[in-house]
């Protein structure tokens, strides 16, 4: 290896370390400042809590409030709603793609439903489904399904005309064209729709838990608000941020695998 190449690789590594260092530094400074300002009373510790209080609250929650059950419930709702949303979205997008006539017919309804703030349906869902996990999942599904359908369907539509011609010259059947061309060609959009679906699912689940649930992080936040313990509210938010970060990370790993060569 030439000295220049060595230097180049070294620089590359150095940049990577710098980025990680700064990321950690930002977190430490943020938490430190937060702790300091609330400790000094410059901002109200009652409203904004503080890192140390959040930490002790989480320990406390684990002991007294079955904290892990709340996490488990929320995670379960998110995962079920996410996979349902993505797979139903995929199937419906496929049906619309294969049956363009139907797609044309229901287009205005899709648009209308897409722009409707689905939260408005919340009260309806509670009365119809009751205060349980199913209602929360239904709420999330209402929010994430439409966006999954629309993005995946548009991904299918983006297939290259020229590749279609190639498949025609090879006398491919409709199913083969779908399996070897249309679907693999949409990997990029499918990944995008996974990301969109995940964020929409989190919104839906939280919304659902706010409205109906007796368990879950959303419930914990509402509970914290009701008893004026904002440490609980903050702890809920922090855990939620962690969960969404980890789930998002899974999707990026999948993305790297799937799109390696494209």
């Amino acid at each position, binding site marked *: 290896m030439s000295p220049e190449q060595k230097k180049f690789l070294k620089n590359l590594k150095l940049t990577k370390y710098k980025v990680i260092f700064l990321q950690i530094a930002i977190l430490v400074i943020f938490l430190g400042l937060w702790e300091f300002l609330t400790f000094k009373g410059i901002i109200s510790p009652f409203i904004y809590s503080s890192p140390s209080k959040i930490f002790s609250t989480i320990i406390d929650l684990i002991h007294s409030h079955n904290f892990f059950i709340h996490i488990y419930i929320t995670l379960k709702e998110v995962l079920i709603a996410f996979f349902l949303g993505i797979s139903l979205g995929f199937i419906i997008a496929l049906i619309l793609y294969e049956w363009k006539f139907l797609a044309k017919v229901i287009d205005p309804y899709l648009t209308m439903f897409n722009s409707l703030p689905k939260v408005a349906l919340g009260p309806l869902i509670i009365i119809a489904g009751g205060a349980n996990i199913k209602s929360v999942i239904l709420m999330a599904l209402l929010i994430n399904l439409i966006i999954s359908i629309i993005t995946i369907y548009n991904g299918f539509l983006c297939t*290259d005309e*020229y*590749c279609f*011609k*190639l*498949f*025609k*010259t*090879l*006398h*491919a059947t409709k199913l*083969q064209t779908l399996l*070897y*061309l249309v679907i*693999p*060609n949409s*990997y990029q959009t499918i990944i995008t729709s996974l990301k969109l679906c995940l964020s929409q699912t989190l919104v839906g689940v939280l919304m659902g838990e706010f409205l109906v649930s007796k368990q879950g992080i959303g419930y914990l936040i509402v509970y914290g608000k009701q008893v004026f313990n904002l440490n609980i509210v903050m702890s809920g938010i922090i855990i939620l941020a962690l969960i969404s970060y980890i789930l998002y990370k899974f999707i990026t790993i999948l993305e790297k695998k799937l799109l390696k*060569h*494209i």
Partner: protein
Amino acid sequence: MNNLIEIHNITKNYHTKEGEISAIKDFNLNLKKGEIVSIVGPSGCGKSTLLSIIANLDSDYQGEIIQHNLKIAYMLQNAALLPYLTIYENAILGLKINHQLTKENLAYVDYLFDLYNLNDFKNNYPKSLSGGMKQRIALIRTLSLKPDLLLLDEPFSALDEQSKLIISEDVYKIIKEKNITAILVTHNIEEAIYFSDKIVVLSKRPAIIKNIISINCENNTSIYERRKDPNFHKYFDTIWKDLDINES
């Protein structure tokens, strides 16, 4: 004499919202086994339409095509390799789609990879290849189906000058060696001359045959030799006049 394929009175109209477009009018052509015919004509005159009809991809036309279970393969202007498949997977796509992944056919694919020095790239992905190499993969994909009749729709026109010569030599050699019958569509007059035994010159849309010219070269071993033929310029001039660039 026995014809491999006879094309009689092909007429084709496209129907669009804007109205009817007449693409081809009364096209006739007979091909014997091993013959190479070029079709030249201005762009948009209906050449691709004609190939689609011959390839049986389009059955909406008037006229008659007589052939007996010919295996027809079609090579397009762009390689259209699928980015998410390896070079090798792309090369055998035609066989896979047609359920012909037999030992014998795969051995033939290996032979072609050898022939074109592409062995080292088998497990690479298309984005790492040059335009010429991509078109070679497309050629392997087309040839792997062992066609009786090979349809080439401007397969060299997207390539740079050097790759164009190399790839057309590859194609010329293999169709001569395997005695494949071929129809080459091109708007490049020289390419048509050094490639073919017969050139059909088409008019502007709707494509009508303006002239059919037989090409006889002394040395047929390669397109390089054919380019040196003393009659090359004479053929060129004839076709140039037939194409009539100034025709309004």
